[in-house]
């Protein structure tokens, strides 16, 4: 005979009645008022719908009439269920949740799977998605990104038209050699961006005036163009957009809410991860540029030369301003590292 204390609710009103449940050897339940002993219900145990166990929170036995016996005697309820021979799905979930060993293994697995997802899963998914997106999406992305850049950062180019024509002519082979990419070269004054080049998702490539001025040889610009073409070939810009959305979505799903506190902390890991993705992209684009340059028989050192000069200029500026924030959180691998990689692989 199993006896447990609890409360009785008739399912029609919120009145609570202290009650006692007894199960005899034949699997028959009898529920009595705790004070008067009056019988409230008699039924076979198989008629009761028993709620899943969750820690030691109150457990309910619901009967056909909507009446409920509620008790905190969880172990006794488990014994009662075992007596009826009914196996319950939630039992193993409860076991997972309560055994310290299982919880530890779960935690380790979640961390490992999470890390693998961020490191490999999300980039792979983004690559697949970027490949199946129709061309119209890329065109729209280019148009919108360029409009945004023009409004926020860039200004119309101030280079003399003959310089622009010369550079355009010199860089044409890169576009001609990759007709499927639809490469379009644009010039803009970089302002705060300084000497820089940007590759938009759909093949639009923007050179800043500062970059053109800083180059000592047009082949240096050709090398930069090849590097940017590498970004376009590998769909880096689109992949980054897809990755960012996937990453934010995954973190939101993991924490189960998007409340203010979560938002505040989601920003940092997302930022750091994006920077890691982005450095990987730069290395890939550098490799693409090296391949191309060696095929065109342009010395690989051209890219390194220009990078070195940009780096030098940036260091001069930093010293002048006395603030070292920008270099720390860089989207590119450290420039000396890149230069060394470029020089060592040159012909």
């Amino acid at each position, binding site marked *: 005979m199993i006896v447990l204390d609890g409360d009785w609710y008739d399912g029609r009103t919120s009145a609570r009645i202290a009650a006692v449940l007894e199960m005899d050897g034949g699997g028959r339940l009898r529920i009595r008022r705790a004070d008067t002993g009056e019988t409230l219900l008699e039924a076979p145990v198989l008629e009761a719908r028993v709620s899943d166990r*969750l820690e030691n*929170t109150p457990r*309910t036995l619901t009967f056909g009439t909507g009446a409920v016996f509620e008790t905190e005697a969880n172990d006794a309820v488990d014994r009662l269920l075992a007596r009826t021979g009914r196996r319950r799905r939630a039992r193993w979930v409860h076991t997972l*949740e309560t055994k310290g060993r299982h919880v530890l293994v779960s935690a380790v697995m979640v961390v490992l799977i*999470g890390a693998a997802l961020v490191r490999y899963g999300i980039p792979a998914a983004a690559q697949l998605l970027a490949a199946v997106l129709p061309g119209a999406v890329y065109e729209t992305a280019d148009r919108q990104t360029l409009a945004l850049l023009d409004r926020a950062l860039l200004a119309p180019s101030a280079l003399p038209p003959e310089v622009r024509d010369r550079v355009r002519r010199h860089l044409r082979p890169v576009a001609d050699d990759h007709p499927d990419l639809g490469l379009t070269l644009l010039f803009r004054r970089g302002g705060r961006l300084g000497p820089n080049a940007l590759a938009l998702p759909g093949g639009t490539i923007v050179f800043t005036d500062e970059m053109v001025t800083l180059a000592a040889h047009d082949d240096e610009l050709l090398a930069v163009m090849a590097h940017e073409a590498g970004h376009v070939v590998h769909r880096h810009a689109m992949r980054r957009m897809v990755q960012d959305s996937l990453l934010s979505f995954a973190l939101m799903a993991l924490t189960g809410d998007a409340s*203010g506190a979560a938002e505040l902390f989601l920003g940092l890991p997302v930022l750091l991860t994006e920077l890691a993705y982005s450095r990987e992209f730069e290395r890939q684009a550098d490799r693409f540029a090296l391949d191309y340059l060696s095929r065109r028989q342009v010395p690989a050192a051209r890219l390194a030369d220009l990078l070195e000069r940009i780096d030098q200029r940036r260091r001069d500026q930093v010293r002048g301003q006395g603030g070292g924030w920008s270099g720390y959180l860089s989207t590119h691998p450290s420039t000396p590292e890149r230069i060394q990689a470029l020089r060592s692989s040159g012909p």
Partner: protein
Amino acid sequence: MTGGSSPAPQCADSPEAPGTAAPADPVQPFTFDGTGGAYFRIWIVNTLLSLLTLGIYSAWAKVRRKQFFYRHTRLAGSAFAYLADPVKILKGRLIVFASFFIYSAVQKVFPPAGLAVGLALVLLLPWFVVRSLAFNARYSAWRQIRFQFRGTYRAAAAAYLLWPLLALATLGLLFPYAYYRQRRFLVENWALGTTGFAFHARARDYYRIFGGFLLAPLAAGLAAGAVVWLAPAAALPAVVLAGALTYLYALAYFSVSAGNLLFNASTLDGLRFGAAMKVWPYAGIVFTNTLALVATLGLFHPFARVRAYRYRIDHLVLRGAGGLDAFVAAETAEASALGDELSDFLDFDLGL
């Protein structure tokens, strides 16, 4: 069993509901006896199984999560219960994912049709809000009396489409009013069994809250401006610090004052709720939670959630002479999980 051991929280600034109010009214505190450690175990298993089943288990995970918080929350010695069937939640989720997939496919192939589908979705929004609230209410219970949500499509359309649109048209001037209408829509259509809730807040209460909410950034902006003017060298760290603190404070201020007002203005058949959260302690919880989340790469999440939830429950009481034994269950049809899951997907925070 009626919580006689815990002292009744002071609730100085709650507006008195009309008609009642005697200082000797019995006070029933809400209590929460779950721990962060216990929720961690549930959360980590939920997360692992959801990952391993490619998200399918997340419906069961949601039920476990809600059960944890409901069953640990008590009023007058009785715990709340969450009774939803995970299979229904899973079905709702699948339908939502499928319709979003169809929507984006249509938009890619034939953009004008995508626009029409988008417009249809906007018009469906109030329906989803109502279904979602009804689902959540229907499967929440206290002493085996289920809650009910009785809002109509028309009222939801007014609260979630008409007033926000008018707020936009007036450059945000009507925004607090729109927010007030949404809260009112929530509370007035909510019922425990057959007993409806009533809402006594006025629009000007919400204008006061939004005013205070805007004051914090203003003050921080002035302070940062002063620092930049007086000591330009310290400008960047000062601005960053001021920004972070303001964000935190404004967030806590809004959660606390809007949360307090929501409960203090709500009554249930002569019983009044009293919420007495304070801004600075709550901001402290949010701040330390944030630091710990960053330091543990998110593993602190379950502890953070329990801490914030416990603070809210610990400052909530129900007072009034009426008994808690006379609520009567209502006969209602089963609610579908579709609306609930869409709201989950679109990430509405529906309060309550």
